[in-house]
């Protein structure tokens, strides 16, 4: 049961791979698909491992991805860590 | 128009030099902030300002060089203040990049240049009018600004106020082109009551954030202004930019932007034809001069009149934009226009162009260091009258 997830704006992505490399739980991978600019944006390969920690978002130089936590059952805060 | 703040105005009669009068003019005009760097013969302006400004809640900051001074003042303006800087030849050369920045970003401010003998270090303590073309063309690229030239300490006061007013009205950097003579000449200067000093207020954004565009031309092509800290998220760049201020680097935007910046000045040509004329009507020869040289010319005119010559004086107070229309009208009516300048012939280029071959144009150049001998000007008048 994943604790969080990511939102990706594929058209902004320049395929640098920072998010993939620095995701602590190795949730992401660059897809083989091109976006309009010819880059390969990331997608989730092990979504269940995502903690929503938003490290991917912190690293993404193009504001193309960010992570967020699912609402806590006890009513915690929603939003990036 | 508003009026000067009485706390900043040293109302009264003074025996002060042009540098001091310029400082008082800036204060009266509402400038409480200035950035500068010392250089002879201009330093007295900021020395006085450093002492006066704190008494009215202002600051003078002496920057590490003229590059810094000439942009720090623009920061002051974008923070909502009126501001100016003061320098002389070598420092003025160092300010050229930032005069272009002020023109491009339509930053209202005043650059005072107390001209001394050049080129290079030249004659630091002696007068010249050798930076007149630099005032117009010294920065790279095309821009159009305003240059005023005072010829007495009294005018150093009066016209400094005008310089600030024009800067605000047109959102341009205004060049205040003094010279060592006028700067270091001491005379009676009358500073009026604050209520008699009219000020052109900052053209502030009349729309709220979201609707307001920082470079949207008004009816007179001049945009309104918002400052840092007012919630407008202003965007100011020296790049070619659109009405939001965002960089937009293509020939079309360039044409739109630069043409407008020229037109906002050229449309106001009549207002900016600021001259003093004396005995021009019916004259055979008219001396066209500015600053200290106009004053020296008066003696030559007296001498010429004593000899029975019909000579008039057209004193240019606003040299840039050049009073083209006036000269085009005047040239056919006279035998000659005579232009003495404390330089090797600068503004006379424009004079001759505008005269368009309709009369003789006689340049009386002088490399500076002192003023003309009236006899030299007289000689030119006589040549012109033939």
């Amino acid at each position: 049961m994943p604790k969080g997830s990511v939102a990706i704006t594929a058209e902004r992505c320049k395929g640098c791979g920072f998010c993939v490399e620095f995701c602590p739980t190795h949730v992401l991978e660059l897809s083989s698909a091109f976006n309009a600019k010819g880059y390969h944006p990331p997608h989730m390969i092990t979504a269940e491992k995502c903690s929503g920690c938003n490290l991917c978002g912190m690293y993404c130089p193009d504001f193309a991805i960010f992570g967020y936590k699912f609402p806590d059952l006890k009513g915690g805060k929603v939003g990036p860590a | 128009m508003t009026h000067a703040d009485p706390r900043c105005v040293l109302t009264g009669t003074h025996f002060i030099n042009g540098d001091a009068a310029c400082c008082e003019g800036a204060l009266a005009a509402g400038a409480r902030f200035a950035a500068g760097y010392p250089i002879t013969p201009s330093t007295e302006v900021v020395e006085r300002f450093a002492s006066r400004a704190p008494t009215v809640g202002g600051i003078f900051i002496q920057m590490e060089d003229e590059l810094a001074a000439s942009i720090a003042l623009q920061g002051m303006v974008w923070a909502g203040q009126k501001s100016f800087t003061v320098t002389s030849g070598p420092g003025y050369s160092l300010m050229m990049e930032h005069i272009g920045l002020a023109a491009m970003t339509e930053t209202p401010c005043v650059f005072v240049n107390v001209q001394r003998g050049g080129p290079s270090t030249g004659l630091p303590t002696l007068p010249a009018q050798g930076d007149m073309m630099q005032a117009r063309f010294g920065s790279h690229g095309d821009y159009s600004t305003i240059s005023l030239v005072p010829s007495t300490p009294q005018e150093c006061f009066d016209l400094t106020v005008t310089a600030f007013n024009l800067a605000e009205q047109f959102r341009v950097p205004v060049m205040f082109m003094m010279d060592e003579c006028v700067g270091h000449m001491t005379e009676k200067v009358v500073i009026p009551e604050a209520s008699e000093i009219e000020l052109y207020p900052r053209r502030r954004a009349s729309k709220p954030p979201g609707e307001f565009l920082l470079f949207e031309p008004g009816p007179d092509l001049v945009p309104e202004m918002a400052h840092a800290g007012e919630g407008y998220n202003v965007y100011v760049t020296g790049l070619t930019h659109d009405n939001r201020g965002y960089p937009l680097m293509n020939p079309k935007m360039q044409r739109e932007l630069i043409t407008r910046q020229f037109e906002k000045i050229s449309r106001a040509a009549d207002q900016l034809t600021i001259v003093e004329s004396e005995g021009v009507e019916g004259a055979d020869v008219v001396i066209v001069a500015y600053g200290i040289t106009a004053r020296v010319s008066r003696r030559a005119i007296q001498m010429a009149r004593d000899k029975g010559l019909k000579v008039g004086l057209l004193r240019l107070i606003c040299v840039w934009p050049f009073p083209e229309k006036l000269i085009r009208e005047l040239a056919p009516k006279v035998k000659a226009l005579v232009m003495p300048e404390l330089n090797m012939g600068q503004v006379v280029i424009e004079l001759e162009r505008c005269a368009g071959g309709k009369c003789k144009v006689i340049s009386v150049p002088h490399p500076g260091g002192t003023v003309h001998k009236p006899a030299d000007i007289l000689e030119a008048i006589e040549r012109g009258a033939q």
Partner: protein
Amino acid sequence: MLKEIRIAGFGGQGVILSAHITGRAVALHENGYATMTQNYGPEARGGAASAALVISDQPVLFPYVANPDILVVLSQEAFTRFTPEVKEGGTLLVEEDLVHMENLPQHLKVYSIPATRIAEELGKKMVLNVVMVGFFCSITGAVSYDACLAAVKDCVPAKFLDLNIKAFDRGFQFGQELLVKGTKPEADTESEAILESAN
């Protein structure tokens, strides 16, 4: 009435201030017109310094002085350089200890004063310029005593006011006494020597 005046010496002698005081007296305390200009070299002290003053009952057009009616010299260099420029029949005021008057043109009216010595006697060499203003006022009459004194008061820091008034008075007094004695400097041995060499 238009009078062209030059005051010259070296930097640090207060030449500019003395011209300022005189001009101010005319412009602000006498309803006249005065234009003061100055020349100085790159040196902060010790270099040549000179001020020109044009006073008139009409607005002053031409602000410079080529041939002064009155020349005040406080240094040898200034004497040598400017004396030849004085108008025919003009007046020359001299700091007598610092100037040896060689080749003095005969047409001039000459008045000397040991201004520095007087200032030193008053306790501050720096007031030699105010001594000179008093002397000038006294000898030339180009500006009134009252106007001049008022201008001195305008221009000096409060704590040195008394000293300066004294300096002004001493200069003025010295002038008055000299006028009684005639235009030539006192015939003490020292100044006689000067006069001799001034032939």
